């Protein structure tokens, strides 16, 4: 006797209860707090804020906790919340030149005005697992010194003064800022939309795409002009008061790549740029983004665009991990109706094949 | 001069009124020639009919450039009301308008002056909303096309008199074209670019 499957609603409820328990884990172990996530898993929070396109450490920490540490799931939670928020307007462009830097390195010059600042970095740590971290480790207090008052101009601005690097395009006053979360994307897309897409893009995808350019698939001879990480002010031009009011400060990482020069009969050769920007401290992300941004400028700079990283439609259509994970994972939804249709067709084709190749059919054909 | 505080109100219930109005317009567009009623009441200004006002509140916003004919814009109350309640920017160039509001059909400009869309993006075309005298009495028209089971009749008193002859540009332009929405008080009829209209006299 066959009975049709029912009871899906209860199954869903029970599955979600089970999930809540799995998320909490062994209840004799202390529950992790949002502060703990924000303070001690700070780079995870940074990534969720960047790819979630929402600067809110507390919500990002909540999303990480709710997602059991699955960062793409956490990014998805933040994005879905962000989509419901009202828009008041667009901030003034942030001035990263005035950043209160915590870290700043350049690979192109040995010394730079304001100095190279290593700051908090994994660089030059020896990757040896440290058992003391598992046993209530208390770090030594950080070394301190008199705060420097020297300005820290951007390395690309220094190169720009001599005309050695293309100038950074300036937005026209009052020009609207593209937003691919509010308008459907059309190709070819302008650089503002490309950069927005890359800023939201999956770190792993951008890393692989950037890496591929280094290995020769769209090579663009990059040098790290500068990576800087620190705090910048965000300002909003309020029409009622007639001037820009500060909204607060955010932490950003910026990477400016200095790439192979170009030139023509009419233009002196100069270096070109690739740009990366992310919330929090995200060096891998911003460096990869800068490589891919430069690769995507191939057509604009008169280069042949044959490699995947130079293919705007390919990169922009596949960089978003929330879209990608949804569509890959939707394959686990039932497909038995279309599968049945495919099965029917395959059986028919196999039967025809068998009939055509049966011994008596061959005999008939011979007669 | 009317101040903002004196402007007639928008929908009492923004969410549900917009939904109900949209369904009337959607049904009108899906079933060309059928007369749909707009139920929710909103204030209106100048020569704007209440049906037109409800459609404006439902579909217009900052993202929809709006073109008004001379008679519609002769009262500053209309532009003020539209600006305050919808935020839609009023433009002088009809060829970039998402919507056009026509109060004086007799002075309707050539339809080619509106956005017709492109073959790649035929949706980027103006929806022209024309206020007419009546959508249940007047001359008879026979309508055919998608959304219509064979043929349907429409009785209407409209200006310009040759509106549907002019609309024939849709036949050669397709998939580009003009979509019309006709409003008489609270009655709405839509004539999308796929509809073929023949006059049957009065």
């Amino acid at each position, binding site marked *: *006797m066959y009975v049709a499957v*029912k009871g899906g609603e209860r199954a869903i409820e029970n599955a979600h209860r089970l999930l809540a328990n799995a998320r909490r884990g062994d209840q004799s172990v202390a529950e992790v707090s949002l502060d703990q996530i924000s303070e001690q898993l700070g780079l995870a929070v940074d990534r969720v804020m960047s790819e979630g396109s929402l600067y809110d450490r507390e919500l990002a920490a909540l999303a990480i906790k709710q997602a059991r540490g699955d960062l793409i799931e956490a990014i998805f939670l933040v994005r879905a919340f962000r989509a419901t928020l009202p828009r008041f307007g667009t901030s003034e462009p942030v001035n990263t030149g005035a950043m209160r830097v915590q870290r700043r390195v350049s690979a192109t010059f040995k010394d730079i005005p304001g100095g190279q600042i290593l700051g908090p970095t994994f660089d030059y740590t020896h990757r040896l697992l440290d058992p003391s971290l598992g046993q209530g480790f208390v770090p030594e207090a950080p070394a301190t010194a008199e705060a420097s008052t020297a300005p820290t101009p951007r390395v690309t601005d220094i190169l720009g003064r001599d005309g050695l690097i293309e100038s950074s395009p300036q937005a026209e006053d009052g020009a609207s800022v593209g937003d691919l979360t509010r308008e*459907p994307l059309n190709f070819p897309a302008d650089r503002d939309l490309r950069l927005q897409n890359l800023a939201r893009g999956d770190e792993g995808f951008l890393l692989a795409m950037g890496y591929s350019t280094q290995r020769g698939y769209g090579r663009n001879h990059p040098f790290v002009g500068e990576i800087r990480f620190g705090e910048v002010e965000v300002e909003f031009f309020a029409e009622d008061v007639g001037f820009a009011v500060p909204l607060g400060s955010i932490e950003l990482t910026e990477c400016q790549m200095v790439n192979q020069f170009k030139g023509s009969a009419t233009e002196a050769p100069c270096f070109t740029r690739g740009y990366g920007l992310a919330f929090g401290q995200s060096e891998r992300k911003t460096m990869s983004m800068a490589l891919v941004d430069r690769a995507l400028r191939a057509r604009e700079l008169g280069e042949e665009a044959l490699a995947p990283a130079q293919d705007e439609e390919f990169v922009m259509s596949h960089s978003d991990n929330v879209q990608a994970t*949804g569509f890959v994972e939707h394959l686990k*939804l039932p497909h038995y109706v279309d599968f049945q249709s495919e099965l*029917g067709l395959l059986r028919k084709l196999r039967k025809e094949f068998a009939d055509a190749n049966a011994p008596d059919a061959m005999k008939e054909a011979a007669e | 001069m009317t101040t903002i505080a004196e402007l007639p109100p928008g929908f009492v219930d923004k969410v549900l009124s*917009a*939904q109900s109005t949209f369904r009337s317009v*959607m049904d009108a567009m899906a079933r060309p020639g059928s007369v749909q009623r707009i139920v929710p009441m909103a204030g209106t200004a100048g020569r704007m009919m209440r049906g037109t006002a409800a459609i404006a509140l439902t579909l217009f916003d900052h993202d929809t450039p709006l073109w008004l004919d001379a008679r519609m814009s002769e009262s500053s109350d209309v532009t003020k009301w539209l600006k305050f309640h919808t935020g839609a920017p009023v433009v002088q160039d009809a060829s970039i308008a998402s919507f056009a509001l026509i109060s004086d059909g007799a002075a309707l400009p050539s339809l080619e002056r509106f956005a017709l869309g492109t073959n790649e993006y035929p949706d980027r075309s103006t929806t022209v909303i024309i206020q007419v005298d009546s959508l249940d009495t007047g001359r008879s028209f026979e309508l055919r096309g998608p959304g219509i089971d064979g043929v349907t009749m429409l009785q209407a008193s409209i200006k310009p008199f040759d509106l549907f002859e002019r609309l024939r540009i849709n036949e050669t332009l397709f998939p580009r074209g003009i979509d019309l929405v006709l409003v008489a008080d609270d009655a709405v009829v839509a004539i*999308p670019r796929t509809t073929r209209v023949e006059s049957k006299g009065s």
Partner: protein
Amino acid sequence: MNAPAYNFAYLDEQTKRMIRRAILKAIAIPGYQVPFASREMPMPYGWGTGGVQVTAAILGPQDVLKVIDQGSDDTTNAISIRKFFAKTAGVATTTATEDATVIQTRHRIPETSLHANQVLVYQVPIPEPLRFLEPRETETRRMHALAEYGLMHVKLYEDIARFGHIATAYAYPVKVNARYVMDPSPTPKFDNPKMDNSPALQLFGAGREKRIYAIPPYTKVVSLDFEDHPFEPYRFNAPCALCAAEDSYLDEIVTDDKGGRMFVCSDTDYCEGRQAAGHHGSLSAAPYKEKAGSHG
């Protein structure tokens, strides 16, 4: 913390306006895919976000909503979407095709004929019928602009040369109003004829791909074919084991590991309606009632 507060039918009004404008243009240009600024929804892309956004933009408190996946009201994703709207819009829901004013579907068109007061909303994964021939949007857009569909016919004809048949069993392309080639979403080709000249409005939403398209009521929808190889809807040749229907699309149920198979209606509402009307198949059983404590 910024505590979330959500609008009727979840979407904010600005988003609804944008989607509503896209729907109107979609109806005015049958079969043409209108780009729209699809929002991130609280369910994954690929799980019905396009259909959900279209439904949210049209749904009102008077509507009666039915949601099906694979023809069934009881598949988990159908339940999840139905609950979403019951919660965010407070609308009445039903499993009876006849009683619904809005039906959201994934992969099937109900067996019961639709009527003029209904809207069928399809969830669409890949809206572009030419996508598997040409991955670039810039190219496919040009092909649609010029109605240049030769490539599609070549592909279908290559199937015939290789297999003796058009080897497309679902998402079988159609031509709408003699102009646009359109993807009907991954419905089995058995359902294609139901799209033609339907009294109901059909709306298609693709959230991840950010496209909305439509078939107005009473519109000609033709499955692509050739004179010498006409379109044939496929159906397994057996009556439903539960309701004995001979005209419905059937699910194949594996009953044991010794090759045992049975075939039952994929449209559960249709099947239950027939059983209630006294039609019985070879294996019909009383519908299973959900018991407290049962699990799936």
